[in-house]
């Protein structure tokens, strides 16, 4: 008979709830003293006596069940149907910078299709010397590159233009993920077909019914765009474009075409649905910006935050957050606890990398009083992440996309946090 230990029926959520309750009474918890011996220590526990799982119980592992709340979440009132919709990365519960594929946000326009490597074809046509067709195996024979890049939907934080709406970093900032991609430089593939001098743009489209076509200027196409087939060391997930997707560093996620099937060299932008009726930013006077490709510098405190309250009372507190810029590396992040009156410069876990997430920390001591937590990113161009008021002054309330405003969490004395706007 198996002695496999299955553990207590608890969850991280229950743990948080219990701790939040305890936290309220545990002010001054810095030097806690045990009154009675801890049975977890004094009594032999089943996991220390019996067996755990043998190898091969889970040939491909999933997170332990206690972490089953760390999942992508949908906001069902946002869209008419989940087939053409988006969900959100649980950034409030993740650390470091790499997003595991299994909880990296999904955005589909016609559902996540299943396309086998054997059925995969990539066509290069248009203003090229030789229109070409590649198989998946062909792509594996080009020299490869590895790069970590963030992919942020242009609509990330888009629900917050008119005011504080969604109560959680996952929902306000979770249309983002950050992975290490392996792929071939688009430049290499274009060279194979031979770009004609009049080719000024590439039009990229996917194999799904939406095709999600986008026009990319040749300058960018020849710069750092990747035709990627691996992420975080393994095959792309179906929902992220298996077997091949485009990676367009620093530019809005909609251009990162999944299930990439065709690249056409053109003399002008195609003006597809995704670059005219959508992903254009309407200003207050009714005119709209088009071709707003770059994602400006942005940051958010991921913990504490509404879904990640402080559960330990006053004393040492790690304020943890993410910063990124589509225009280069993050050079500095400042954190304010008083809604932007005073700022302290946070510690970057590692020097910022171009177009990749950067983790920042403010190692601090919490006095148990309320805080209005904010973070403010700066990138290598000297750009400083603006406030929502500053953004609204230029753009009004109807832009939908590219909201990179400073976020405020109101942390209350009981450790809970809420999404608020401040003057």
């Amino acid at each position, binding site marked *: 008979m198996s002695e496999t230990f299955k553990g207590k029926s608890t969850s991280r959520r229950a743990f948080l709830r219990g701790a939040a309750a305890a936290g309220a009474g545990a002010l001054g918890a810095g030097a806690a003293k045990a009154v009675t011996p801890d049975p977890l220590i004094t009594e032999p526990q089943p996991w220390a006596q019996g067996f755990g799982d043998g190898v091969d119980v889970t040939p491909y592992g999933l997170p332990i069940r206690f972490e089953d709340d760390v999942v992508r979440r949908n906001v069902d009132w946002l869209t008419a149907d989940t087939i053409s919709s988006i969900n959100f990365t649980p950034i409030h519960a993740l650390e470091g910078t790499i997003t595991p594929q299994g909880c990296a946000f999904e955005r589909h326009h*016609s559902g996540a299709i299943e396309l086998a490597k054997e059925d995969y074809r990539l066509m290069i*046509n248009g203003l090229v010397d030789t229109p070409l067709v590649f198989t998946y195996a062909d792509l594996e024979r080009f020299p490869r590159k590895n790069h970590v890049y963030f992919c942020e939907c242009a609509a990330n934080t888009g629900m917050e233009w008119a005011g504080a709406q969604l109560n959680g970093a996952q929902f306000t900032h979770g249309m983002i993920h950050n992975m290490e991609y392996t792929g071939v430089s688009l430049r290499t593939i274009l060279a194979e077909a031979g770009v004609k001098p009049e080719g000024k743009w590439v039009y990229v489209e996917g194999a799904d019914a939406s095709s999600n076509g986008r026009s990319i200027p040749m300058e960018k196409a020849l710069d750092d765009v990747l035709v990627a087939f691996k992420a975080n060391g393994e095959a792309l997930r179906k929902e992220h474009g298996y077997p091949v997707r485009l990676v367009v560093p620093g530019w809005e996620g909609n251009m990162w075409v999944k299930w990439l099937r065709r690249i056409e060299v053109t003399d002008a932008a195609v003006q597809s649905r995704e670059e005219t009726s959508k992903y254009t930013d309407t200003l207050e006077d009714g*005119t709209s910006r088009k071709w707003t490709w770059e994602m400006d510098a942005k940051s958010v405190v991921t913990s504490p935050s509404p879904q990640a309250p402080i559960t330990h009372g006053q004393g040492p507190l790690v304020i943890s957050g993410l910063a990124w810029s589509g225009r280069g590396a993050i050079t500095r992040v400042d954190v304010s606890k008083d809604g932007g009156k005073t700022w302290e410069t946070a510690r970057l876990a590692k020097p910022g990398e171009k177009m990749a997430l950067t983790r920042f920390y403010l190692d601090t001591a919490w006095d148990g009083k309320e805080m209005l937590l904010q973070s403010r990113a700066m990138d290598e161009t000297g*750009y400083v992440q603006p406030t929502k008021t500053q953004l609204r002054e230029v753009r009004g309330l109807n832009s939908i996309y590219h909201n990179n405003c400073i976020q405020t969490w109101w942390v209350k004395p009981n450790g809970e946090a809420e999404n608020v706007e401040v003057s």
Partner: protein
Amino acid sequence: MSKFLKFTLLAGFAVSATAVFAGDYGLGRPALPEEIAAWDVKVMPDGRGLPEGSGDVWTGDEVFAEKCAVCHGDFAEGVGNWPKLAGGWGTLDHEDPLKTVGSYWPYLSTVWDYVNRSMPFGDAQTLSADEVYAITAYILYSNNLVEDDFTLSHENFTEVEMPNADGFIVDDRAKTEYPKWTGEPCMENCKDEVKITMRARVLDVTPDEEKAEAAPVEAETVAVAEATPEPEAEPEAPAVDPALVAAGEKVFKKCKACHQVGEGAKNRVGPQLNGVMERAAGSVEDFRYSSALKEKAAEGLVWTPETLAAFLAKPRDYMKGTKMSFAGLKSEEDQAAIAAYLASFSD
């Protein structure tokens, strides 16, 4: 001339032009003209890529009613959260602008291109070129941009003027924003006072954490409140009425965008419907039903003329959280006709 020969001639011609740069891995193979024709269906604003063909507003009205209206409404006004394609003129500088083909889209080519390659939703690439011209003509008509006697074709396509064609500017952040927001930021005494001006919790539109706990893997947070109405007294087994079946076939056009029935029917946006009548709900294999439907199925819902009628009358009332985005079939005759039509297809 063989296709291969034709291609090599074309390629030979192309190679004579000067490439900016060229690779030398020798990977891939030349794309054949038929392959390029099959995949390269893009249409440019100047009309390049449009196939020959035409369609008038009235034909468009019929095709739209059959294939598009289930989501976009009979008058392109949109159903529920589905895109509105008409209206919204002059609202772009209002608080909540309504962006439609008429009020917002700068190029007509975008409509043709998108309808042609991606619509109907769940049944893409099934429209003929003439149907796409007709649908495009009807959308223009719905936006008061053409008269009802208008016919759109590849010949007059670029003559149509889109009202918001000049409503776009190229990204100007480098001029209007970056200089403003660059430089050493304030670190101390940056504001006199800070007040909370808005709270997310007051609005309360965040998905509920506790609901997710009940169904942690599926992020679908669907509350099912209403119970299945008790079926009325057992009806007498109706004889098959060919006229009713024929009527049902017509009504079924409203369902065809998402459901298939008959020989070789496959799951699309909705499940295939062969043998659906008198069968337990939610029993088509490999179809991802909504949690709402699964719950009803668990409660023992069986599709009878009565239960189907109740569902089709107002799907979202009968089954809160259903994925079926269908406004409803109000006429009892239509409901009965659909049931008779579906009953004529067994598994």
